[in-house]
């Protein structure tokens, strides 16, 4: 059974200018011990998908459709009649079965609380143990994520830590209760390149050590290449292509995926391949049309693309893609 299964999830935000359809009909699953990469530009809905799963959407956001199961347990917001019941169930799930690693280590730690308080909080939330025991476990966690002299540093405040060290603390908080699913929301974006590599190494090691399913959200295909088993490509609130890492890198089907791959610089063949940026900018999810969201930026766009969203076509057990170019009627030369 999948650790986490998301079916037909849609999430909307109501804003001053109208309703924003941030997540549109997204289905995903993560298996035990697997790393799933979710790749897309900012605003593609990848983070909001995960916030929907965690039940951490901002006040104006709402899941309007879909099911979410964690380890077989139904945690879809729509399955609960009252918000209170959902909150109560999610308080047990969050930090315990499912934890999140966040993007910016500078802003996600509470500046006026000691590391100790912030780190033992999830442990005490979900385990019936004393503060002293929780502290011992917290120190153990800090050691695990590679923070030197944790006994001393646990008494300090976030501002006394560097960015990379803070990100390690955030990872330690996520690991506190050995969650079944870990969602890492762009964990390296806000870090220096050298620190990025260290943090990625850390997550890679954890993958081997833990039995959890990990979801790695990023806008950088290069990051996922090294540690992900499967990759989902999101665009305009939808998953446009999903497959194993090999399938995505060597047999990309969707023009957007191909475009993303063209954007990666590879030091080995710099002279062979020129970097090709994708023209234009991601679609505004406010008043989005019926057709494929990528139409306006797609070199191979056809008339049908603007009119209707394509079906998802399955290529293998693991590989599928939603693009009109894969339709039998599409002319072959473009493909």
């Amino acid at each position, binding site marked *: 059974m999948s650790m986490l299964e998301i079916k*037909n999830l849609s999430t909307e935000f109501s804003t*001053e*200018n109208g309703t924003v359809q941030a997540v549109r*009909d997204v*289905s995903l699953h993560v298996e035990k011990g697997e790393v799933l990469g979710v790749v897309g530009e900012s605003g593609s809905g990848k983070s909001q998908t995960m916030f929907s799963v965690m039940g951490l959407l901002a006040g104006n956001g709402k899941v309007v459709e879909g099911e979410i199961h964690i380890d077989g347990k139904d945690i879809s917001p729509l399955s609960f009649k009252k918000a209170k019941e959902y909150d109560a169930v999610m308080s047990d799930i969050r930090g315990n079965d499912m934890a999140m690693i966040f993007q910016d280590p500078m802003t996600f730690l509470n500046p006026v609380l000691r590391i100790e308080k912030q780190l033992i909080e999830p442990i005490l939330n979900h385990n019936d143990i004393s503060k002293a025991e929780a502290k011992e476990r917290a120190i153990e966690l800090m050691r695990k994520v590679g923070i030197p002299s944790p006994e001393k540093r646990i008494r300090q405040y976030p501002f006394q830590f560097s960015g990379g060290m803070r990100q390690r603390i955030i990872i330690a908080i996520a690991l506190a209760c050995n969650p079944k699913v870990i969602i890492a929301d762009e964990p390296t974006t806000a870090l220096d390149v050298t620190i990025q590599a260290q943090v990625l190494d850390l997550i890679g090691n954890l993958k081997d050590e833990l039995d959890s399913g990990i979801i790695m959200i990023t806008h950088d295909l290069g990051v996922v290449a090294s540690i992900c088993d499967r990759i989902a490509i999101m665009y305009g609130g939808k998953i446009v292509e999903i497959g194993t890492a090999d399938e995505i890198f060597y047999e990309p089907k969707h023009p957007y995926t191909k475009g993303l791959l063209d954007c990666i610089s590879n030091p080995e063949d710099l002279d062979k391949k020129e970097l090709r940026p994708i*023209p*234009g*900018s991601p679609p*505004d999810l*406010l*008043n989005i049309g019926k057709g494929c969201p990528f*139409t*306006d*930026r797609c070199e*191979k*766009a*056809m*008339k*049908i*693309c*603007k*009119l*209707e*969203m*394509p*079906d*998802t076509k399955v290529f293998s057990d693991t590989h599928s893609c939603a693009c*009109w170019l894969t*339709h039998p*009627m*599409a*002319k072959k030369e*473009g493909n």
Partner: protein
Amino acid sequence: MEENKTNEIQLNPELFEKLDDSEKNAEKIAYESKTYFADAWSRFKQNKLALVGLTFLVIMILACIFIPMISSYSFDEGDKLAKNLAPSMAHFMGTDKFGRDIFIRILYGGRISLSVGFIAAFISLAVGVVYGGIAGYVGGKVDMLMMRFVDMMYSIPDLLYVIMILVVLGSNLTSLLIGISVSSWMGMARQVRAQIMTLKEQEFSLAAYVLGASRTRILFKHLLINSMGPIIVSVTMLVPSAIFYEAVLGYLGIGLAPPQASWGTLANDARRMLSSAPLQTFWPIIAICLTMLALNFIGDGLGDALDPKKK
């Protein structure tokens, strides 16, 4: 998923023709953008309380200017036969112990109170902007000394200055204005300095310098224009506080000397009549309350409207 959807339209090869570039709108903008002030005004208009406040203030100002000009009642000469009258058609708010029409006296008082409020706010603004601007732009030791002085001024209760200045210079309009301004420019100075300090670090200030703009030009054009929003809001908030000081001093009997009347002194005059004719106290109080409320509503509305982050 969306398996059934494609059935809704008939697929034909023509639909699979290449889409022309002209039919794409890669850089479409979902909603129109407006200029800073148009945007601010549209947000200000949405704030009902602020609009009510603005309307009230405009009516109050116009009434204070024009009604005494055309009224047959005088503010300082009473009708000895019509003392302490209750409100009637002839005397809208009744008369006081000298038989003077209270409505007209309230409007005359409004002239003084409103003038004190606005003039004092603008003096504070001018002093604060210049002082804070210099401290913020010059920086270093000068800044430290100047701001220490502000800290010092800050730590002394406002009313003490005003009272000391009134004691020394005598109870008249000028010393009242000086007193109130002296006690309220510091907040503005601090704010302007803080604004300047932040803006100084930003790229556009450096860009202007590189393009050859002179130091003073940068200070007054770029920096101050960029700090307009918060400064306007502070000024709107200074006006009611100046009106308040004037009223307090008037009420305590250390403000303006009679026969000059402000809302504060009118309240003070009526105080002795509190048990026999409480309405006489009520009118000036309500005039002050409503005016301050209106100004605060406007200030709040402007604060929300001029801060682009508060969308």
